[in-house]
């Protein structure tokens, strides 16, 4: 359909918090776009605007100026209910603390956005189980979050973020509470989902995790100050290493 149009476009975004003497310019004219199949990592010190960027991209907050386009639709001009619909249909979130609903099983958690989107619970559940199976998480379907490890919960959260037609996953320090090997397995899954066609934005302070992205963007004081270029040299890297 929308072959080359980015899934997410942030165009010259500013976001000012507070008024008078307490004005904070969280973002100051930021432009960023993420295409299907692309994982973009955002790095920067605290206060650089990383989290603001994610909340705006997910339609949880409005920019002071600029446009937020998800799948070509401008969130800023939508009514509250239209926006909620876009969020349910197009955008999935992954948080540091997993945010699965403790009273629901993995499959029910994953099915939830589909049910809220109007699907019958049987259909939603079938989709959820299929999606878990696709991510090698089938054996978790009937477990409750308390009976899963952190890494398992986070992988289920990724499944939930990308259930149904959703193509945009916004991840805020998704590996924060995990040990390094488990964190890596979560990143691998996120990478695989993007390779399969999703668009991802990953906010992290861990360079090792950001390195799974196609592009790493550095924020400072609400602006992009630098970004890594296109994938380089893998074949010439390290002598014979990559034969």
């Amino acid at each position: 359909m929308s072959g080359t149009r980015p899934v997410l476009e942030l165009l010259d975004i500013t976001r000012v918090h507070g008024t008078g003497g307490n004005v904070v310019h969280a973002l100051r004219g930021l432009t960023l776009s993420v295409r299907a199949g692309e994982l973009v990592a955002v790095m920067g010190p605290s206060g650089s605007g990383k989290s603001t960027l994610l909340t705006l991209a997910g339609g949880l907050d409005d920019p002071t100026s600029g446009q937020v386009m998800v799948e070509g639709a401008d969130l800023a001009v939508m009514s509250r209910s239209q926006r909620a619909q876009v969020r349910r249909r197009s955008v999935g979130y992954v948080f540091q603390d997993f945010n699965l609903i403790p009273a629901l099983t993995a499959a029910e958690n994953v099915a939830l956005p589909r049910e809220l989107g109007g699907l019958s619970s049987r259909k939603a559940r079938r989709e959820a189980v299929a999606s878990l199976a696709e991510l090698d998480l089938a054996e978790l379907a009937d477990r409750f979050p308390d009976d899963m490890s952190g890494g398992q919960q986070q992988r289920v959260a990724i499944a939930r973020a990308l259930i149904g037609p959703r193509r945009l996953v916004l991840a805020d320090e998704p590996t924060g509470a995990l040990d390094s090997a488990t964190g890596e397995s979560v990143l691998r899954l996120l990478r695989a989902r993007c390779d399969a066609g999703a668009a991802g934005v990953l906010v992290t302070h861990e360079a090792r995790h950001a390195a799974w992205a196609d592009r790493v963007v550095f924020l400072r004081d609400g602006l992009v100050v630098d970004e890594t270029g296109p994938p380089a040299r893998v074949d010439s890297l390290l002598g014979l290493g990559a034969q």
Partner: protein
Amino acid sequence: MSIRHSLLALLESGPMYGYQLRTEFEARTGGTWPLNVGQVYTTLARLERDHLVQAVSADAEGQQHYRLTDAGRQAVAGWFRTPVDRTAPPRDELAIKLALALTTPGIDVEDVVRRQRTATVQTLQDYTRLKTRADDAGDIAWLLVLDSLVFQAEAEIRWLDHCEARLVRYGAHRSEVTRTEAAATRTGHAETLSERAGARVSAAIKGGRR
């Protein structure tokens, strides 16, 4: 890197000839540190001189094989038992560059830091791509080598972040010192800020290396 010990360790698996050792070394370490075959032959000659390896009769193609002696076998065991010496770190071009950037007039240190970080993150991305391939191929030795490179690059990035934060604080402090220094120069104290900073940086680097 100890070529000596690496070759000895390879010979633990059985006799090999020079070219074979080179190929084997690169295969087992993912080709991260290419060896030239001349290095291999020179090292073998020294190992033979030191009675750690022994030439065995050449094969049908005339390839000179070497095998470990008992002393050589002990040397391998000793190498694996002994931690690598980190008390004499190799010269670090980046640490030296930053120290000099700080004390060279007209150089924007924060810019040097930022460029390096972007470059190192990019390298980290490259390593990560290689890791994905190695993982698919089930090449565990190569994965370990890559992990080592990944963690080193990550450490460098964290250090650069730290430098940047420190420079911001130092910058605030410096503007104050410059005023004091201007006053000091007027009253005949010759030492400049950059001389003092330079001395402190080199002292810090030496200190940190112990």
